[in-house]
């Protein structure tokens, strides 16, 4: 039978997931995820010392210790960067591992005390949701609500400081104060997640929901709300998992769930997703294939001075050395698009196809001319570049090119730059 977590646990996890998602979004945009990780790891010795000194295992007291040593760790990073030649990533690595090592040492030492063993300090490493009590949750709720309220209240200010801190400063926004507040929000968020997710993995719940949310929206407000929602869902799923499968600590369960959300978003998001990008590339390759064949039709017509006769697949394949099968596939696509028709055992462009072919050749030759005139490239060096550009030039760019080249008639090799559909008189001459 499935064991459902108590309502109070779900409540605590909800506020935790929402806070982590929201604060994580701001941290992600400020690239402070590793800082948050260091902060969380650096909290461990503080927790142990707080217990060692007071002998109490009161959550607020332990978290006070965590806050002190976490903040000390962050301050140490800044001090190392400012006074030594070490860069920030090195400073982060050193502080993170040193503080965590110290924490582990203290923890082992404490476990040799009979009382220390029962204090449950171990839970702070990998997290635990099972014994979340009402008073724990009240703390999480209080802190989380303050954090979320501050983000809502100072949304405009935080947004500007995340996007363009120097500009914010010139406007008279208190940049240092806002950055300090953002850092404090991060500290508070890390603190309330330590008991449930643990020092090692808190960074995961801060980062993954935010990164997932970023994939689905281009608005900061929507990103924050979505990340908070994902955070809640992940915490709940992770808690269920952890409660029902023996030997599953809550931290890994929650963070792995969040990672699944993130991975899915990275792959599937409609505009920023890997899959969407892959489909776009596929579509572009198809476009290039079609446009290349159209321009091949044009070049054949130009060489032979005939525009309205059909060409055999072999003729078309010979232009750029394609296989007949590949050409046939592309021809079928052109036919579907209404740009080419099959006739007399060969293939011929429709009027629309001829227009399109002329447009592509025109862009190709304009670009060649531009390269050879402006960059002084030899005429035989411009073709490959123009092959790529002919598929991507926008009408505005073409207009600008023409103006810059003073409406040229011929390309560097002296071939005419087509203006619209090739004229019937061309083939009447033959």
């Amino acid at each position, binding site marked *: 039978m499935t064991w459902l977590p108590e309502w109070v646990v779900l409540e605590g996890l909800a506020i935790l997931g929402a806070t982590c998602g929201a604060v994580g979004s701001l941290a992600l945009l400020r690239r402070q995820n590793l800082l948050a990780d260091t902060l969380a790891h650096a909290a461990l010795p503080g927790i142990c010392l707080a217990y060692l000194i007071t002998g109490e295992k009161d959550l607020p007291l332990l978290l006070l210790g965590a806050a002190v040593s976490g903040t000390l760790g962050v301050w140490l990073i800044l001090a190392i960067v400012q006074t030594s030649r070490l860069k920030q990533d090195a400073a982060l690595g050193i502080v993170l591992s040193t503080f965590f090592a110290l924490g582990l040492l203290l923890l082992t030492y404490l476990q040799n005390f009979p009382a220390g063993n029962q204090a449950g300090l171990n839970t702070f490493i990998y997290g635990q949701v099972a014994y979340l009590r009402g008073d724990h949750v009240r703390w999480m709720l209080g802190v989380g609500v303050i954090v979320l309220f501050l983000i809502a209240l*100072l949304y405009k200010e935080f947004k*500007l400081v995340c996007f363009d801190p120097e500009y914010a*400063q010139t*406007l008279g926004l208190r940049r240092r104060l806002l950055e300090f507040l953002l850092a404090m929000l991060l500290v508070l968020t890390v603190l309330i997640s330590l008991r449930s997710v643990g020092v090692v993995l808190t960074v995961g719940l801060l980062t993954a929901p935010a990164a997932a949310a970023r994939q689905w929206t281009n608005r900061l407000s929507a990103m924050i709300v979505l990340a908070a929602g994902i955070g809640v869902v992940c915490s709940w799923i992770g808690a269920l998992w952890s409660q029902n499968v023996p030997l599953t600590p809550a931290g890994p369960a929650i963070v792995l769930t969040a990672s699944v959300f993130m991975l899915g978003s990275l792959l599937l998001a409609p505009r920023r997703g890997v899959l969407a990008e892959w489909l776009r590339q596929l579509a572009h390759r198809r476009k290039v294939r079609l446009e290349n064949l159209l321009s091949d039709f044009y070049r054949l017509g130009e060489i032979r001075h005939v525009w309205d006769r059909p060409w055999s697949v072999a003729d078309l394949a010979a232009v750029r050395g394609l296989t007949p099968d590949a050409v046939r596939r592309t021809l079928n696509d052109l036919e579907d698009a209404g740009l080419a028709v099959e006739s007399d055992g060969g293939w011929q462009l429709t009027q629309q196809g001829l227009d399109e072919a002329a447009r592509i050749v025109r862009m190709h030759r304009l670009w060649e001319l531009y390269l050879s005139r402006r960059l002084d490239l030899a005429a035989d060096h411009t073709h490959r570049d123009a092959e790529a550009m002919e598929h991507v030039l926008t009408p505005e760019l073409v207009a600008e090119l023409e103006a810059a080249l003073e409406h040229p008639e011929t390309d560097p090799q002296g071939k005419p730059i087509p203006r619209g559909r090739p004229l019937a008189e061309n083939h009447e001459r033959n």
Partner: protein
Amino acid sequence: MTQAASVRGDNEEPTSDQRKAACSGPFPPIEVHDLTVAYQTRPVLWDVDLVVPEARLIAVVGPNGAGKTTLLKSIVGLIPASAGWVKIYGKPYREQRHLVAYVPQRASVDWDFPTSVLDVVLMGTYGRLGWFRRPGRAERSLARRCLERLGIADLARRQISELSGGQQQRVFLARALAQDACIYLMDEPFAGVDATTERAIIQLLRQLRDQGRTVLAVHHDLQTIPEYFDWVVLLNLRLIAAGPVAEVFTPANLQRTYGGQLKILTQAADVLLRREEGRP
């Protein structure tokens, strides 16, 4: 001047005469006195004295690392001065910031930030709005008008990561316009923009000047300076010369700006730096 706090929010553009009155006064727009700026003990500006006149289009010119950006940033208080001071219409910057709009280098922000073009332009109104207040209908319509003046009203809802370099620059300028300032400080507004954008920008800068505003822009293309600007500030760690283009933009001055005569100054700076760091 000084009480020229922007009359905005309504739908009226101030007429250019009103604006001229608002942006002129007994004190010069920018006065820089004996300014020295150092990054971690390495001086990047030495003893700069500069008085910028009203209603001019001014180019700030100099080789890479000459301190052009630093000069702009220290005018708006982003970089503290090691010595000397800057005054805006006779008062310190922090009392006059509503009169100054700063346009940073385009590359200084992350253009993949989740926000729209209109939202970025609205940021220009944040200083006026103050704490907690959100931009409302008045600010939105102002932001749209600023986008229109830059010819990109159709991009208002666009996500900023989809903009070209020229469009990004226009968005930054629209944001500065939304500040409705008397002094515009622009860091390389022409860098990496297309020809159409360059024409649009210079036209806008001329409009601003004709309304009595002062524009100071870091500029790299020496060829276009006589055509675009009225005044030029030649800078290379110290001030080489400043004045009307016709008088100051001379081959001799350019030689002094870009030539090798500053080696001693650079070397001195290096020696200073090494000593501070305890190296031989």
